[in-house]
Each structure stands twice: as structure tokens, then as C-alpha cells.
């Protein structure tokens, strides 16, 4: 069971400010976990920390994956272990084409497995799956992409790199209804017994397509409630109010 991602008592601060206050969470292989919570509760902070962003300082805790405390690894080493983050706000990289970038990335995470013609085929196939126009492979990575196009490009990267532990940070925000369906169906075809997914979202919409095995609610840098998929429906109906009360008690 070393292929599960185990987050233990994780405390994280940024620029001296404490954001995560002891997060415990497990994402099993083959499982979809949803992480929900109000704005500013620390969901992206958790995602960035799992990927190793240098600005996020781990004050306490550990994250185990494949027998390692991945907090000790550089971001690229985490990616090579199979961890993937679909960014809430993907960066625009001038002058680096989507295809050049993805070929380099695939060679890094899975060295020597894909010849250039195979890569071209793979890229084309995944672009078709996500209904992304061929011309995008020649465009510079995310430069001038619309919000929705950026999210689709993130999932394209997921589809090409085929990681084993994927964190999707608000992949649904900025997508119109049709795009949401395409992206969600794309993610669905990638799911399987070998991939664990942590889906960060505000809305039930996405979870209608990607059914979570578990739902966790984060408030003020802590998981305040965990449950099954019905928890997401409850939230949709009632909001976070009851948890805010709960949070007061906890934090004081």
C-alpha cells in the first residue's frame, strides 16, 4: 500500500503566515478524492506544497508516497515519482511550444520510452480526445490561451504524461458547459485502478462527471469533515456556514 499518498499533520506557512494547520489526508491508488472548501481555506496551498513550490514552507508534518517523504524531493523528482498538479492558474511560458515542452516533459518522467513519431501520434490522439485544435501544439505554452483553453491544456498534459497521482486544482473553473463535459470525460478515460486523483473544486458540476469516492472539506487550513459523495450534494444545498462555526471552536 505504498502507492497511496499519505499526508500527515501537515503545517505550512507562506511569507510567515500560517496557512495549513495540520492536514491529514489519504489518497489511495485508484481512488478519486474531492477536496472542497471556501475561498482562501488553503486548498491550493496544499496542492502547491504537495508539488514542492519553494515559496511554501513546511513547518511540520510529512507526505509519504511510494515509500518516500516527498517533501524532501525537488518538484521534478516528485513528478518523476508520478505526482502531477493541474494548476489553478497555469503559467504562460513565452517561446516554448506546447509540443516541444510536452516532449521534453515526457522524456523526463518516462525516459527513453517514446520515439519522436510515437510522441507525435500520442499528442495528436490526446488532442483529439480533448477536442483541442491541432494548431495548439505549435503555439507557445499557455501564451494568449483563454482561461478555458489553459485548463484544457493542463488536462492534455495529464493525458500525455499519465501520472499515477494527479491533483486537479479547480480544473473546472473557467470552463463553459461543453468544455467541462469534454474535460471531465477526458479525465474519466484516464482514470483507472492505477491512478489516484485529488480533485479540488467548488462545484458539484464536475463531480457529476467524475464521481468521488470520498469528499473532504477544508476550512482554515484543516480538514473539518470527510464523507462520501453525498457530502458534496449537502454542501451544494447548504454552503459552508455550519463548518464556519465549527472552525471557530477548533481554532481558538
Amino acid at each position, binding site marked *: 500500500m505504498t502507492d497511496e499518498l499519505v499526508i500527515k499533520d501537515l503545517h505550512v506557512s507562506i511569507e510567515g503566515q500560517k496557512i495549513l494547520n495540520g492536514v491529514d489526508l489519504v489518497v489511495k491508488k485508484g481512488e478519486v478524492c474531492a477536496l472542497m472548501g471556501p475561498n482562501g481555506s488553503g486548498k491550493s496551498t496544499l496542492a502547491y506544497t504537495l*508539488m*514542492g*513550490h*519553494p515559496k511554501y514552507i513546511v513547518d511540520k508534518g510529512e507526505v509519504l508516497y511510494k515509500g518516500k517523504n516527498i517533501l524532501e524531493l*525537488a*518538484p*521534478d523528482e*516528485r*513528478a*518523476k515519482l508520478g505526482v*502531477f*498538479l493541474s*494548476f489553478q492558474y*497555469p*503559467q504562460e*511560458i*513565452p*517561446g*516554448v511550444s506546447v509540443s*516541444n*515542452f510536452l516532449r*521534453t*516533459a515526457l522524456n*523526463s*518522467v518516462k525516459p527513453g520510452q517514446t520515439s519522436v513519431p510515437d510522441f507525435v501520434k500520442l499528442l495528436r490522439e490526446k488532442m483529439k480526445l480533448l477536442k483541442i485544435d491541432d494548431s495548439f501544439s505549435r503555439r*507557445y505554452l499557455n501564451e494568449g490561451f483563454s482561461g478555458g483553453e489553459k485548463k484544457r491544456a493542463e488536462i492534455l*498534459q495529464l493525458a500525455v*504524461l499519465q501520472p499515477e497521482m494527479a491533483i486537479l486544482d479547480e480544473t473546472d473553473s473557467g470552463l463553459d458547459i461543453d468544455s467541462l463535459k469534454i474535460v471531465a470525460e477526458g479525465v474519466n478515460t484516464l482514470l483507472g485502478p492505477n491512478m489516484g486523483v485529488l480533485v479540488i473544486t467548488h462545484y458539484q458540476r464536475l463531480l457529476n462527471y467524475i464521481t468521488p469516492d470520498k469528499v473532504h472539506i477544508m476550512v482554515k487550513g484543516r480538514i473539518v469533515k470527510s464523507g462520501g459523495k453525498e457530502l458534496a450534494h449537502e454542501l451544494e444545498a447548504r454552503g459552508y456556514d455550519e463548518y464556519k462555526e465549527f472552525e471557530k471552536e477548533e481554532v481558538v
Partner: protein
Amino acid sequence: MKEISKAKSEAADARREDSLERFNSMPMPKEKDENWRYTDMGKLKLENFAPFESTAVITATELSEDLARHGVILSDINSAMEKYPATLNYFFKGTDIGKDKFVALSAAYFAHGYFLYVPKNIEIKEPIRINLAAEGKNSVLHNLVILEPNSRADVIEEYTNKDIGDEQLNASITEVFANTNSRINFYHVNNWTGNVYNFTNLIGTAERNASISWVSGCFGGNLNRLRIDTNFNGQGSSCSNLGIFLGKGEEHIDFTTNVYHNAENTTNDILVDGILKDESSSVYRGLIKIPKEGQKTNSYLANHILKLGDKTLANSIPSLKIDANDVKASHGATVGQINEEHLFYLMARGLSRAEAERLIVEGFFEPVIQKIPLEELREKIREMVRK
């Protein structure tokens, strides 16, 4: 390719002698001189190189019989001065040797150089290639390119050296004259290794409706100076100028462009992008001069520097000197560091820090490289950047 020989020529000797006094009387440039600011000349001792005996080897494309029959000439400069006295009229028509000690050095000591002459209405389709291999301590040359009205040519100059484990000096001037309605694409790439002091000067003069397109790349060398001047002498003339440089180790790059809009309705567009690694430094100097005669001029200049590491040093000095009132001119310069968020994004996909940096560096140049009209050159410059 054939070698451009070092022929004897009395006409050339006379010209060299005229320039010698001028050269001797000029002091070494100092950092406080406007045209040399931020370039430390302290380490260069010219007496170590005297008498500047040039041992470089220049090779050039062999002209087809057809072109030769139509009067195209590609020969060495010395015999051209002997055989075609008219060439003498062009000598230093585009610049004053007294303005630059190293232009004066080329004028006083050039041992060889190429001469390209394209007669009226002739269009040369295949690029003319010129390779300079500096094999000894000195390479001092003087090149001359003349395009007669309505002619067209592409020239690809490549300068390299064999590292001799000692100081090496390259001083060269290439004068390009684009007469009425002619068009030239001129590519200059230098790639030095070891302890090289390079002073390359490209001086272009565009007559009525003529156009010059410069594309240049500077790589390597201890002190690598490239100066490109464009004189807009005829109405409607235009010029585009793309430059790329990459500094590493303790290299210093001095990239200078000067444009003189001496006629109405002329257009100039300059883009110089550079990357500095390790402890390298650079200065970009860009002068746009528009006297009263230069009404209705459009002149633009942009310079972007990407600094990798805190030990690099970049200076950018654009300057506009405008005496005409109906012109459009602007300059922009940016000096930036690599974006840490970009690095993280790429590393999150599995690229090592070094690979991520490499992609960002290549990406930085890509928009300029995309503007180079010759695929061969685009690939060549990409390769240099990759090294």
C-alpha cells in the same frame, strides 16, 4: 568554397598608409567615452598584437559561371582595388575612421577581405557565404559589398577562430552599399572560443528605396564587440535589424547599433535580445539620430535582456537624438531575471532545473529567431543557444 587570397596591391597599400597615421594618433578608447561606456578596455594591450599581421583564412562561395558572366564579382579586396579603381570611391564612404580606433585599425592594417559586387538588375538567389577562420594571433580585415540599383543578394558571414591558448584579436569592417532600389539580407554570426577580443563593424548605407536587413548573432569571446551602423541616405530606404547575443563565463558583449536618418520617409526597426549567464556582462548601445532632413521617419528600437544569475551585469543605453518634428520614434528596453514561477511550472512536469532553464532560454530567443527569414540560420542560431 574557395579561399580569398591575400594579393598585393599598391592601391591598397596607399590607403593603408593614409590610415596609419590616423590610427596611431588616436588614443585607446576609455570607459568614460560615450561610445565605449560600460566596456572595460583595460585588459587589452594593443602592443601585444603589433604589427597586426593577419593570419586568418577567409573562404567564400564560388560563383556560378552564369553570375560571373553577368558581371557579379566575388574576389579579394586588394586585387579589386587594383583592378576596379571605382571601388576606391566607396572606401569609408559610410563612416569616419576617426570615430573608432578599431575601425582605424582595420583601415590601417587590413591584410585581406572580400569584395562582392552585384551589378544593376541582378538578383542572386543563393546566399553568398563567407567564412572567416582566425587561426593565429591577429585577423584584420576589410570587406566591401556593393549592390547596384535594383539588385538583390543575401550574404551569410560566419566568423570563428581556432583557440590558440593565447590572446587573439579580430578587427574587421564590412561596408555594405545598397544603391537605389536594391535589397540585401546580411547575416553575421560570430562564434569565438577562448581569449578573443573581437571588434566587428558592419556599416551599411541605403540609397533611395533600398533596403538592408541585418541579422546577427554574437557568441563567445573575452570581449565581443559588434557595431552595426545604418545610414539612410536615400528617401524611402528601410532597414530591419535583429540581433541576438549570449554571454557566459566572464565574457563581455558590447552590442552597438547606430542609425542615421539622413533622408525623408525612412524606416528602421531594431530588436536586440540577449541572455547573460554565469558572470558575463553586456552593454547594448542604440542610437537613433534624426536630423532635420529626416522628416516622416519611423524608427524603433527594442532591447531585451534576460539575466540568469545575480552575478551577471546588463546595461542598456538607448538614445534618441531628434531634430525633425514630423517623425515617429521610440525605444524600449527591459532587463529581467528568469521567472521562478515559470521554472516551478516546468519542474512540476518533471524537467530538471537545468532543463527548465534551457527551455526558458530557448523560448526567450524564439520570437526573434522566428523573424529570421532563412531556416538554415534559424537552426544555426538555435544550435548556438543550445550549446
